[in-house]
């Protein structure tokens, strides 16, 4: 991507800036990273473009490695409870199916329940129902228009009563700027916590990988509302690089647990900082 043998000059830095910005890293984070790169290159006497590129990778990997994080799966016989949240169309419902498949295949979790907490959107319950069938999970649902907290509550009761391994609570897509919808999400969180007598094991923000700088606003507001435990970045099988996670990782310290790379139940990958950086550049 950079011709080897070029020297570290302003033109080269501008080219690196373009690579980062077009990867959705954002202006502020890019400026910071390029400054760090200049300083480190100077300190080590690095001049050649391919060496500079390696240095940039090193800096980006350092920033992202702390963001790696595994799912918190319980081993005490209690169901691991997941709240799945995010803006409209980000991939929440599909990611639930992927997570369930992942838990079955890689952790031997057999008994899984899905709570149809999207009681608003057309065919949201049916969509989750089809996924439940495909991955062998049980569905808890009420009719459209009912209170999502009530669905979540019933699902928790059932998960506890039946000794389920995991419970996934699907929620309706909501823009983080809509106060009443954010209050609804907080209520679901409170109702479930109260019934469990503890916080949910995972409150995962599902972030669409094609999103630009708005991802940062989303992460910030959803985190303020329900204290997000991790992020899943979806649709990285496309051409978007998801660079906004650099800013999210450094500013909010939220772990990136997994990435979505397709529309099937097995299209889920662990987030690996090194792989992510190689793909970004």
């Amino acid at each position, binding site marked *: 991507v950079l011709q080897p043998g070029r020297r570290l000059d302003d033109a080269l830095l501008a080219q690196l800036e*373009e690579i980062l*910005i*077009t*990867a*959705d890293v*954002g*202006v*502020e984070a890019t400026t910071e990273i390029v400054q760090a790169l200049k300083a480190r290159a100077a300190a080590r006497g690095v001049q050649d473009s391919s060496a500079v590129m390696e240095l940039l990778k090193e800096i980006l990997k350092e920033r992202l490695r702390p963001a790696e994080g595994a799912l918190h799966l319980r081993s005490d016989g209690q169901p691991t409870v997941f709240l799945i949240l995010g*803006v*409209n*169309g*980000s*991939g929440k419902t599909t990611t639930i199916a992927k997570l369930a498949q992942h838990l079955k295949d890689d952790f031997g979790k057999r008994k899984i329940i899905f709570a149809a907490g999207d009681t*608003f*959107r*057309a*065919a949201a319950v*049916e*969509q989750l*129902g*089809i*996924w439940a069938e495909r991955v062998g999970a049980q569905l808890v649902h009420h009719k459209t228009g009912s209170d999502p907290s009530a669905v979540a509550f019933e699902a928790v009761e059932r998960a506890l009563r039946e000794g389920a391994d995991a419970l996934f609570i699907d929620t309706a897509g909501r*823009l*983080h*700027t*809509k106060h009443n919808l954010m209050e609804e999400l907080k209520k679901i969180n409170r109702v479930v916590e109260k019934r469990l007598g503890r916080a949910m094991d995972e409150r995962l923000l599902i972030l*669409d990988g*094609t*999103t*630009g*700088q*708005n*991802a940062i*606003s989303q992460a910030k507001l959803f985190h303020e509302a329900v204290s997000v435990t991790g992020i899943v970045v979806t*649709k990285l*099988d*496309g*051409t*978007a690089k998801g660079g*906004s996670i650099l800013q999210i990782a450094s500013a909010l310290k939220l772990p990136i647990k997994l990435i979505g790379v397709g*529309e099937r139940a097995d299209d889920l990958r662990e987030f690996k900082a090194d792989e992510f950086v190689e793909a970004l550049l």
Partner: protein
Amino acid sequence: ALTEKLNSVLTQLRRRGALTERDLDEGLRQVRLVLLEADVHYKVVKKFIDDVKQKALGAQILESLTPGQQIVKIVRDELVQILGGTRADLHLTQWPAVILLVGLQGSGKTTMAGKLAKYLAEREQKRVLLAAADLQRPAAIEQLRQLGAKLGYPVYAQGRTPLEVAEGALQEARKSSFDVLVVDTAGRLHIDEELMSELQEMKQRLQPAETLLVVDAMTGQEAVTIAQTFDQRLKLTGIILTKLDGDARGGAALSMVTITGRPIKFVGVGEKLEDLEVFHPDRMAERILG
């Protein structure tokens, strides 16, 4: 806001009258940052700034404005000019007029199909048929069926492939004298060769009056590649920007219009079927400039 930012930056250059090239470079450096933060594509920003600079240097500047205000005015006018350049109404020239909705996964196509149907039926007294040509997403047909039922419009969903559904719907539209056929398609990646070819085939067979790319307003830098690819493969007639009821600045709008020259025709401003608005270039310009 941009004006305050520019005024503070240009405070040292408080001269009245014509903008100097130095004022302009300083001010445009700020504008560049604002546009990049708004998700406008890197290369589009570069071109935009160069074009604005040319215009500004040759322009008649209003004596009553500060240098900051002058720059903002030139920038805003240029943005509105680009965004609103082509006329943006629907050209439903044939009968039945086919509207084909395309785009990436989750951008808002199915919801938009319902919104457009409602808009055309209520505002223009059209008889609208909806076609559920997404056979791949779980309950996609059911989703459009429920929207259709809510509106009281029929939804055609017969066929074992998306092409069969689309062609069957067109035949039905002709046979039963519908004015408009709105075809919902499955979300797909612009790099998915098979699915993009399927769409090309569908366009070929339907000969739509409108081929509209439905794009999420929060889309980042990739908006250029997405729009360009869909346009090159299908020849779009317009773009629809969704989820503008959020706080995404929507710089993707400037990127896509600049690169493809296709107009933005409508915007989605909510989840309900009435949450559809005609595109306003001046409002979009304000939003992008923050």
